[in-house]
């Protein structure tokens, strides 16, 4: 038996209804670790490159890490991958909650879904028993209702469910999948893939148990990690506010996206901050499986309640679109969670439309009479509904900002803040240079989680010198050494994704490192995950991802940032006057990777 791992891979063809169970191969796992690495490698090996994202041949994969569902804190994530309908390149998205451990307890490391079901269906996995069930009666229902209905149908409240809402059914390109109602597989449109396969939900009931190879050693390592988390200087802040603490923090360093990145400082941040959210609406903490941070929160307002929101959603529906009404942001969060719509991508379409009208490039007549203005919440509500159901101009919005800007032309693409088709996250890169580089090179597009180079925010200059020999790495405004930092944290971020752990633990809190991860993997799985083995695996995965993206049409010219961040300095706040010299940084990054000037990996990739 395999320790740590679930031990099986499940292959399901929705067209033929064929279900196949394979044993997980330890030698293969040594090469891919699990989670994102496992999914991406499968895709590299099995997906014909010219397959259209919405065609039945596209793969839809769910995977968990080797230590998910064990004593290890914060390892509860699941990664869903496939060729992204939003970007046309490698797509994946991860979410925490309680779904991943359930999949592991059912005995699986990965579920690979291909084909398209004739009728709406859901996949029910109860340990060894796997079946496809009719979901016609659930089609059209929102995520919360779907989840409740399936639990009722099964008579089992403990079933874990990843489901889509109407946005996924209507093939909105940035539709999400959700588990535990509010845990979103948000980015790159994995909900759209579910919809394209007529798959309403994946339902798991796992009654098995997970054993690790060396229980004593493993418990000792986990205890150390727990202590490091509990004694971390940011612990109480993270416990109280979770990622929403970033509203104030990013505003203080002048990089809180305000009015669609026109400013990095928001005058009314106190009205929309994590502190205010906590004080006014939070009733208690929520948490992912076996995490001791409990960073999520349950809110109750007059009319709405639910889990969240996290920083990216909060910012996307407040300062980024010029809205100072926190209550509205919570209402929007609830709507997005129910319908299954990505907050970042939907928020960017709104920000883009507002800026285009403000600049006189487009008018409300271009948008079915919707007069986008900063913080015009009734219009925002309308467009969200129109996107979900692809009504009127909402049909164009549902294709994403890149497509919108192409459709309208007139120079509006200058204000479409996406990279490789994926809308940018909420952090102005002009004041965090290594993050800027991360957005530019991230293999799924405009995203920080591919490297999360947190160290540039620490101001720990001596430590930076000790670790990398470059003091400037600890200075967020410096350029020097940032390629080195990103090259390193990109591997650490991938390792976190392969172990399907939380990025807070894997990176931001600086409590993990490759050697410690190697010890955990060895004690957990009993396989020879030496630091060298792990490092080789990570480099291999990154190069395969890159080669796959090159096959999908990505070139060095796509490794860049939108115009504003390179050419227009910030006008206010603690990052005033800064831009990102992205071309130089990308070249330094290629060099650090050992790639050529076109960003093409040079060494032969291990098969």
């Amino acid at each position, binding site marked *: 038996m395999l320790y740590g791992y679930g031990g099986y891979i499940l292959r399901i063809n929705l067209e033929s209804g064929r279900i196949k169970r394979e044993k997980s191969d330890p030698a293969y796992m040594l090469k891919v670790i699990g989670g994102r690495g496992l999914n991406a490698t499968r895709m590299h090996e099995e997906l014909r490159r010219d397959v259209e994202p919405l065609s039945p041949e596209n793969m839809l994969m769910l995977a968990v890490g080797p230590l998910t*569902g*064990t*004593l290890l*804190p914060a390892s509860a994530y699941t990664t869903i991958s496939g060729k992204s309908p939003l970007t046309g390149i490698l797509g994946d998205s991860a979410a925490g909650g*309680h779904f991943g*451990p359930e999949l592991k*307890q059912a005995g699986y490391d990965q579920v690979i879904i291909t084909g398209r079901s004739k009728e709406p269906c859901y996949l029910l996995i109860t340990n060894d028993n796997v079946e496809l069930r009719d979901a016609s009666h659930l089609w059209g229902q929102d995520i*919360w209702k779907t*989840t*409740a209905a399936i639990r009722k149908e099964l*008579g*089992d*409240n*403990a079933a874990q469910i990843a489901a889509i809402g109407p946005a996924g059914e209507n093939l909105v390109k940035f539709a999400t999948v959700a588990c*535990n*109602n509010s845990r979103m597989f948000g980015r790159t449109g994995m909900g759209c893939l579910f919809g394209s396969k007529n798959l309403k939900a994946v339902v798991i009931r*796992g*009654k*098995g*148990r*997970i*054993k690790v190879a060396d*229980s004593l050693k493993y*418990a000792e390592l986990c205890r150390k990690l727990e202590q490091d988390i*509990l004694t971390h200087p940011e612990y109480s802040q993270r416990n109280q506010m979770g990622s929403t603490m970033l509203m104030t923090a990013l505003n203080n360093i002048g990089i809180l996206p305000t009015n669609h990145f026109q400013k990095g400082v928001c005058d009314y941040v106190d009205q929309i901050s994590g502190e205010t959210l906590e004080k*006014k*609406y939070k*009733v*208690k*903490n*929520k*948490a*992912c*499986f*076996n*995490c*001791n941070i*409990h960073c*999520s929160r*349950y809110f*109750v*307002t*007059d009319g709405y*309640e*639910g*889990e969240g929101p996290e920083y990216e959603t909060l910012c996307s529906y407040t300062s980024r679109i010029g809205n100072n009404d926190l*209550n509205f942001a919570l209402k929007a969060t609830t709507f997005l969670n129910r319908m299954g719509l990505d907050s970042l991508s939907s928020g960017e379409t709104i920000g883009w439309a507002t800026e285009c009208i403000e600049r006189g490039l487009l008018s409300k007549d271009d948008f079915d009479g919707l007069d986008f203005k900063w913080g015009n919440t009734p219009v925002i509500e309308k467009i969200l509904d129109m996107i979900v159901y692809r009504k009127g101009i909402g049909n164009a919005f549902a294709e994403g900002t890149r497509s919108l800007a192409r459709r309208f032309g007139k120079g509006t693409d200058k204000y479409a803040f996406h990279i490789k088709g994926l809308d940018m996250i909420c952090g102005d890169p002009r004041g965090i240079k290594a993050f800027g580089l991360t957005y530019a090179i991230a293999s799924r597009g405009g995203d920080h989680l591919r490297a999360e180079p947190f160290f540039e925010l620490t101001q720990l200059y001596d430590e930076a010198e000790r670790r990398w020999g470059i003091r400037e790495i600890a200075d967020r405004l410096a350029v020097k050494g940032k390629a080195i930092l990103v090259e390193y944290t990109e591997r650490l971020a991938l390792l976190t994704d392969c172990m399907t752990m939380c990025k807070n633990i894997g990176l931001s809190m600086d409590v993990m490192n490759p050697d410690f991860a190697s010890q955990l993997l060895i004690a957990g799985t009993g396989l020879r995950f030496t630091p060298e083995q792990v490092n080789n695996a990570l480099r291999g995965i990154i190069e395969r991802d890159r080669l796959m993206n090159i096959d999908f049409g990505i070139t060095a010219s796509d490794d860049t940032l939108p115009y504003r961040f390179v050419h227009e300095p910030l006008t206010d706040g603690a990052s005033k006057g800064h831009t990102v010299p992205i071309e130089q940084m990308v070249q330094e990054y290629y060099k650090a990777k050992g790639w050529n000037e076109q960003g093409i990996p040079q060494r032969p990739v291990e098969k």
Partner: protein
Amino acid sequence: MIFVDPGKCSGCSRCEVSCSFFHTGMVGRSSARIKIVKIEGTGIDFPVVCQHCKERYCTKCPQNAIEIGKLGQIIISPTLCTACYLCEQLCPIGAIELYEDIPFVCDLCGGDPQCVQACTLGAITYEPDKLEPIELKVFKTKNKKLTPEQKRVRFALASTKQLREKWLSGRN
């Protein structure tokens, strides 16, 4: 006995994980003696564990395999137990459940409950000298056809009514 405060519980399941790991060396909800019930849509997370109820329904074991220990905990004799599932049926709140023919119920870890140590929010506390067994008679009605999980949900819902009311009355 063990006391739970659902107002503090985040539903992280660390109690389940520690319980299962330190008793069996493996992690899985099936072999946890404390089980979190999550009622999604209401924000309720509620750890269900043996309440040392006044009635002690489970002691009606036909094999006499169940006795009450010094701490008030349930002790099941593995040699006498024939896995007849009667204790599982008798428990009104789903605090006993068999897994692979072994009954799992809280044994208080001999006086040092691992779940309490694992809970970093203070939602589960252990007070050895404080005994406040409650009556579970109300949960005995119409529960013949319920699974242990369904019984836990019913108990959790009933036990968190006030908490929900408090949340809803204080909303902004």
